[in-house]
């Protein structure tokens, strides 16, 4: 059996201090002002992937479950959102809801099968199921195969707010992003989240305490799928296309790298990690050095040298200094 406790995690206190609250408020204020200096589309892309990584981390960092199939939720929702906007011509909020609903259903089906196995088997099962979904997307008529779904307008939020303006879209995505991160934070610090972490630390003990471990895991899987779907839907609206890249297993790998690089099991880790990976990708895309190789090398260095991730490593250093 796999002991999940070997995963290094960042300890977090249940109630934030006043100072922490101020830091968070300052960060949110900064997020709202940032498009004054930075290209908003890049920031929106960062937020989509940060949300995706946070959704993934909800499962890995707090549930100890390594899913290798999260691209299915991200890309599946992107397809449904794009299809809803283009063919059904609904408002963007309904399109995203449809995407999230699809991700939740997919998450429930995949989760029901995957939680039957543990550890590396869990990873392989999720990967194989996601690949099955990939082939479905490749062949299903509504996804348009290699072309993907493109050429639709972003629409008007609630029929009023025109999302065609990237500055407007920025604030919509920023609000959804902050609200989702807050929701994930709430879930993690709820009694449910505590049980989930207990299962991660010692599954046998949780079973003997009478918790129905499988149901807790399934719950985490479905919620994580839902948030990943939200990220995918937002991304589809942002870039106005949905393609096979989003459901490919490389995407599942990228989100793992984001989480690992930033730090597993903290709220800030996946956000920092997503920022770094997207920046790295943008940088290497201009140098001619193959992006996949760069990502692979980052992965290897990360696993070999700093498994705590950047946020985890910083946290560890500060904690060590405080002790001495």
């Amino acid at each position, binding site marked *: *059996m*796999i*002991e*999940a406790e*070997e*995963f290094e995690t960042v300890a977090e206190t249940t109630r934030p201090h006043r100072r922490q609250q101020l830091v968070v408020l300052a960060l949110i204020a900064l997020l709202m002002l940032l498009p004054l200096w930075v290209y908003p589309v890049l920031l929106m892309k960062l937020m989509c992937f940060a949300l995706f990584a946070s959704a993934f981390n909800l499962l890995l960092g707090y549930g100890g479950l*390594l899913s290798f199939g999260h691209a299915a939720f991200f890309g599946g929702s992107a397809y449904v959102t794009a299809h809803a906007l283009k063919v059904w011509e609904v408002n963007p909020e309904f399109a995203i809801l449809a995407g999230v609903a699809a991700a939740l259903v997919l998450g429930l089906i995949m989760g029901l*099968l995957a939680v*039957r*196995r543990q*550890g*590396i*088997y869990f*990873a*392989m*099962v999720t*990967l*194989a*199921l996601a*690949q*099955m979904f990939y*082939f*479905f997307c*490749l*062949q299903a008529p509504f996804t348009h195969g290699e072309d993907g779904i493109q050429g639709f307008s972003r629409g008007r939020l609630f029929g009023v707010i025109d999302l065609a303006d990237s500055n407007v879209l920025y604030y919509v995505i920023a609000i959804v992003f902050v609200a989702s991160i807050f929701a994930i934070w709430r879930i993690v610090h709820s009694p449910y989240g505590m049980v989930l972490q207990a299962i991660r630390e010692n599954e046998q003990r949780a079973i003997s305490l009478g918790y129905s471990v499988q149901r807790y895991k399934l719950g985490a899987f479905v919620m994580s799928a839902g948030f990943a779907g939200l990220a995918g839907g937002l991304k589809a609206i942002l870039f106005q296309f949905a393609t096979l890249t989003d459901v490919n*297993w*490389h995407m599942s*790998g990228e989100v*793992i*790298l984001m989480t*690992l690089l930033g730090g597993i099991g903290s709220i800030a880790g996946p956000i920092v990690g997503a920022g770094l990976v997207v920046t790295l990708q943008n940088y290497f895309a201009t140098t001619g*050095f*193959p*992006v*996949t*190789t*760069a*990502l*692979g*090398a*980052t*992965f*290897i260095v*990360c*696993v*070999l040298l700093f*498994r705590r991730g950047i946020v985890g490593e910083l946290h560890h250093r500060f904690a060590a200094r405080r002790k001495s």
Partner: protein
Amino acid sequence: MTMIFGVPLVVLTGQVMIGLINGSFYALLSLGLAVIFGLLRVVNFAHGAFYMLGAFAAWMLGHYLGLGYWPSLLLAPVLVGLVGALIERTMLRRLYDLDHLYGLLFTFGLALLLEGAFQHFYGASGKPFASPAEMRGVIRTDFVTVPIYRGWVVVASLLICFGTWALVEKTKIGSYLRAATEDATLVQAFGVNVPLLLTLTYAFGCALAGVAGVLAAPIFQVSPTMGSNMIIIIFAVVVVGGMGSILGAIATGYLLGVVEGLTKVFYPEAANIVIFVIMAIVLLLRPAGLFGKEN
């Protein structure tokens, strides 16, 4: 013409044959995964990349050194095995004491790195690779038409699979291996060089993937992505089989290859996903896999 279930017999046997060939690769690759997993407890995500490496090594030996198919069939797996040994010695062994998931993540990074590098230097399109001249003919009977080379692939893979099985089950080295799987510390106390055994095992597993790559080179094109398409199917094969036993890996490999071939005859749309569907069904009925033991 003889018909079975409304399908001409020749078409049916032809697809069974193709299924057996694909099954040969599934068996060889899941066997390598099983050998590595058995001792190192590492799920070698880079296995597909080593398969690709084997095919490319054969192509390079031919392209740059002018070596023919047969020397390449021997040399390429050795080269792949050496690369594997190097990686195990320098990096992979630092991860043994950690959660198994780190081994999976490390080899995943390795797979990305290799695939990206080969795509960069050799382009995304495939390189043609000719089958050896003496095997270009076709054997025709009333039931089935078999290109000689493809027949050879099935025979070679069967030989290698059962050779490996015999090596693990019937030899002294194999018995050390099995003992180390149970309790490495104890075996080390008896004077067996366990770290060396681990290196050799990883190298051997990688070499098996390399052999599969060379065998595949004349059938599929030699391309950087050939391994990443394969590895996920192999994982499904492993989940179905259960990764518990070597014979299980071999049997499941051939079985799923043939099932996939038959699906192409009766319901071609599902051919890509039939293995994953079977995996889902097996998970529902027997989560530990067909040959696996419940833990």
